[in-house]
């Protein structure tokens, strides 16, 4: 089983590479060097704040776009093109296929983010000529961004298992946007009364809490990230992604291929 998961994940990674998904790194590099040069005029501290904010936001957005647009096609494209027939007629279980696909895209995103992380640190080095201890928190912020990708990828997979690719992309994007304000929604739920309270609380718990995973601006200010938050976020993201993935598996197990 582990072997088949690895094979499917590796093939998904290979597909992403050959479909030139990693070419987004070029755009990212251009953006980053442009920003580093442009803000070069301002004082060092502001400069750093801007570069960290801007680059980490870009890492997150680039990755989310990949997670959604590749994620919605992971399984639905294989059904549509019927490439799945000759895979599922082998000793591959349907859940192995879904989970393998998920890990393949997750690996792609980790590699992509890793390359971007190198770029971010090069930019930091370029503006302040040395790395300082608070810069380590940038790594934590990047780690949280990867956790966000896991959630978004699993959601894209879930939506694409029962709706059209376009609708799936819309749903996934909407959830990403709302999820980024999940904390505000929770605040609203706490204040609301009666039925609104229940509805808002239900929504607040269903929606992925992506705002807790966003520590970009506090890291940009050089503030540390609490160890408890790292632990909480890790458990939360893994559980959320696992639930969404299980939903996708449950739907896919029942499905008649066309």
């Amino acid at each position, binding site marked *: 089983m582990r072997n088949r998961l690895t*094979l499917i994940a590796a093939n998904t990674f290979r597909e992403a590479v050959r479909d030139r998904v990693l070419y987004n790194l070029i755009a990212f590099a251009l953006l980053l060097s442009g920003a580093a040069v442009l803000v070069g005029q301002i004082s060092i501290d502001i400069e750093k704040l801007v570069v960290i904010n801007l680059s980490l936001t870009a890492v997150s957005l680039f990755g989310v776009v990949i997670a959604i647009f590749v994620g919605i096609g992971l399984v639905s494209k294989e059904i549509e093109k*019927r490439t799945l*027939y000759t*895979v*599922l*007629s*082998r*000793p591959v279980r349907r859940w192995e296929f879904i989970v393998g696909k998920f890990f393949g895209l997750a690996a792609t995103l980790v590699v992509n983010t890793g390359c971007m992380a190198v770029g971010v640190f090069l930019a930091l080095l370029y503006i302040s000529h040395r790395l300082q201890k608070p810069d380590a928190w940038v790594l934590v912020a990047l780690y949280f961004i990867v956790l966000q990708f896991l959630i978004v990828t699993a959601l894209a997979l879930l939506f694409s298992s029962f709706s059209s690719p376009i609708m799936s992309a819309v749903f996934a994007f909407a959830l990403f946007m709302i999820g980024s304000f999940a904390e505000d929604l929770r605040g609203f739920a706490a204040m609301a009364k009666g039925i609104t309270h229940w509805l808002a609380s239900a929504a607040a718990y269903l929606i992925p809490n992506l705002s807790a995973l966003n520590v970009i601006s506090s890291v940009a200010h050089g503030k540390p990230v609490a160890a408890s938050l790292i632990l909480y976020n890790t458990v939360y993201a893994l559980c959320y992604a696992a639930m969404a993935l299980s939903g996708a598996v449950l739907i896919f197990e029942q499905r*008649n291929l066309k």
Partner: protein
Amino acid sequence: MPAIEILGLEKTYWGGFWRKRVKRALHPLRLTVEEGEIFGFLGPNGAGKTTTLKMLMGLVFPTGGSARILGLDVNDPQVKAQIGYLPEQPYFYDYLTAYELLAYYGQLSGVPARQCLRKVDRALKQVGLQNVSGLQLRKFSKGMLQRVGIAQAILHEPKVVFLDEPMSGLDPMGRREVRDLIQQLKSDGKTIFFSTHILSDAEALCDRVAIIHQGELKGVGAVADLTAKMDVKVELIWQGAVMPLSMRSLAERCYSGGDLYRAVIKQEDQERALDALRREGMRLLALTPVGASLEDYFLQQVKPADKPVEVTV
């Protein structure tokens, strides 16, 4: 132990608004294929051949019945390591080369990495693709993809091979090669179950055939047994000025070219036909008994009333 047992497999598709339109793609089907057989699954377009194969592969779920392959339920994961499947109009990951695809599939089928490369090479050679093994599949022609499809179906040396229209899209050499390949598989002790429209292929290859039409089994057996049940016919060729009226009513098919006439009639009508020719003073040139072909049998089974299969409830 039979290689394939189809136990009342049945499929209904629901379509339309409120899922009210019902399409019976396959009526409960019972069929047994013995180990080591080449079994042909015949039927006109839309008969339900592909649907049956997809249910056997667990790609589509039956609305009723079940099936066993090598004594195990089709959903048993152990079955999958022992079967090969060529889908209809196969399509593969087009970013891979033929070699990469087959290596990937071999590993998915549980072929150990050490043997995998050897088996891929052999399969590529068997379907005549060894020269394009490094080419990406997006650059393959239809017939080349069909060959890749056959290669992936036999690569891991499965005990039972399912082929959905294996000859489609192939050139004449390709067809001949696939025929030889199927026979080779049989002599290696494999069971082959294939669907086709090409009756001459079925006649030449199959130990037994089944014919389905509009989702219903119309006949199953060895080609010789099936055609033996049909009326023997006689072909007459004669020379004359006109086609006698009585011949016209007796003959199933008649052809004319200049003053030569040719007609195929039932054997029991032979004397009446000869009388008619004699009466009209025509010259009989030849009288040949013709055995019924699989095509005759097929057409007879498939002809009766095309009653609508779509009903609204």
